[in-house]
């Protein structure tokens, strides 16, 4: 497989970091970004750019860094995302701006900036959507909606910019990140909550960030050259089962 020049947004931790690690292990050049300082534990081979993807200038600067450091960007992984745990009634304008700016405008900004060259010379875009963009997580209204946007944009890019550009999305389920662990810590009975949640996963475990990185690696590889415009669910079988599972009661 040819060595890619890859940008992974939101690579400081969690799923984004696992994607950075995997792409480096596969021999690609990787530029990643976040709103803060370079994380101390980020592998030396990865180039860090402090950037807010919701800002158009930052997105352009990120692409430029990749192009000048490694040559023409060929792979873009839009992973950066935020969540606000509120219903529509509870969400205020700031919540809307935060979620939509990062999860929607950020993905759009990065795609638009990357497509300047990709549309002519070819490229591969992988967006991180969510199962929550298909079925609703309670009290996550803006997040759920923002992920549905990502799925729709993915299909549009595949349709508009094929055959030069392939574009796909991955819909992770429950991936054990610091974000998910915080959720369980808040449960009335954390142990019971964990057992209940586990029982809803046909594969018998929660996802790990590297489960998503595995899919990214495949979508970035020459094994997937006929795959475009798809949104693949990687959730341990959770959404294949009815949310109503009488065996659990």
């Amino acid at each position, binding site marked *: 497989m040819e060595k890619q020049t890859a940008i992974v947004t939101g690579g400081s931790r969690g799923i984004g970091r696992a994607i950075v690690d995997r792409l480096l292990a596969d021999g690609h050049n990787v530029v990643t970004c976040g709103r803060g300082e370079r994380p101390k534990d980020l592998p030396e081979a990865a180039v860090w750019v402090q950037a807010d993807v919701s800002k158009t200038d930052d997105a352009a600067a990120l692409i430029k860094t990749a192009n000048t450091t490694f040559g023409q960007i060929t792979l873009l992984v839009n992973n950066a995302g935020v969540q606000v745990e509120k219903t529509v009634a509870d969400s205020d304008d700031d919540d809307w701006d935060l979620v939509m700016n990062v999860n929607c405008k950020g993905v759009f900004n990065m795609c638009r900036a990357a497509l300047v060259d990709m549309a002519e010379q070819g490229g591969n875009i992988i967006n991180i959507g969510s*199962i*929550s963009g298909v*079925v*609703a*997580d*309670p009290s996550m209204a803006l997040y759920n909606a923002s992920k549905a946007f990502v799925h729709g944009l993915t299909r549009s890019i595949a349709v508009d910019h094929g055959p030069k550009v392939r574009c796909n999305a991955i819909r992770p389920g429950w991936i054990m990140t610091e974000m998910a662990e915080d*959720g*369980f810590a*808040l*449960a*009335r009975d954390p142990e*019971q*909550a964990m057992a*209940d*949640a586990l029982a*809803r996963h046909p594969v018998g475990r929660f996802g790990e960030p590297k489960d998503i990185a595995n899919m990214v690696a495949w979508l970035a590889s020459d094994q997937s050259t006929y795959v475009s415009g798809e949104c693949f669910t990687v959730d341990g079988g*959770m*959404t*294949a*089962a*009815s*949310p*109503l*599972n*009488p*065996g*659990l*009661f």
Partner: protein
Amino acid sequence: MKLEGKIALVTGGRGGIGRAIVARFLREGATVYAADLSPEGSLAQHDADGSRFVEMDVADEGAVQAAMSQVQAEFGKLDILVNAAGIEIEKTIEETSLEEWNRSFAVNCTGTFLTSKYALPLMRAAAKSGTSASLINFGSYDGFIADPGLAAYCATKGAVHALTRAMACDHGPEGIRVNAICPGYIDTPMLQSFFTGDGSGGEGGNIDTLQQAVRDVHPMRTYGTPEDIANLVNWLASDEARYASGQLWVLDGGLSAQVQQMKL
């Protein structure tokens, strides 16, 4: 009355959901044939409702042909066919015998195939009168996402969904609309059997507690009634739905709109 002058046939017409559809069609002014294995159907009792009972095993080609011949002789057309007959085997594939598997497909899939096949000439005749004829199959939300221990049922309903789209493509040009209703948890004899049946969670537990727990998982905090299903069937059967075809109409109180509900 939305269905005045229309001739309808409902399979499983004396069962949980079918019976509610028959009652609604009658109220809307249709002439209704209720087809079922027996006049009592799965509710094991029946009060006269003004429908015309036809004894029919939907998996029996001869019985289906005889019923359609009767409709042909009496009215010469069929405006509405509702394939509501269905059975449910509550087992994993390992526990399911070949006979049970075959019977599931015979009733849920072959039955839908046979009644539709022999109703089509009558429905074409109805469509010639100017308004479209409406064929309504019964899929299930289980055709999209699985309930545990219902393997054959899930598979038959997925097949009905695909058949619905295929029929809509093939027979749309003839003025026949084809849709499927995909119910979630509806209060029927089938659901009660699921609650109390082997391995479904009913054992050792209090059925009221179980039912409440099931209701609580639904965004609407209740499961549906046969009348809820009949409301949508009635609309799809009516001329108001004249542009609706080839679709799978999920009616589950929002159950499948949500991610698995973790007890946090």
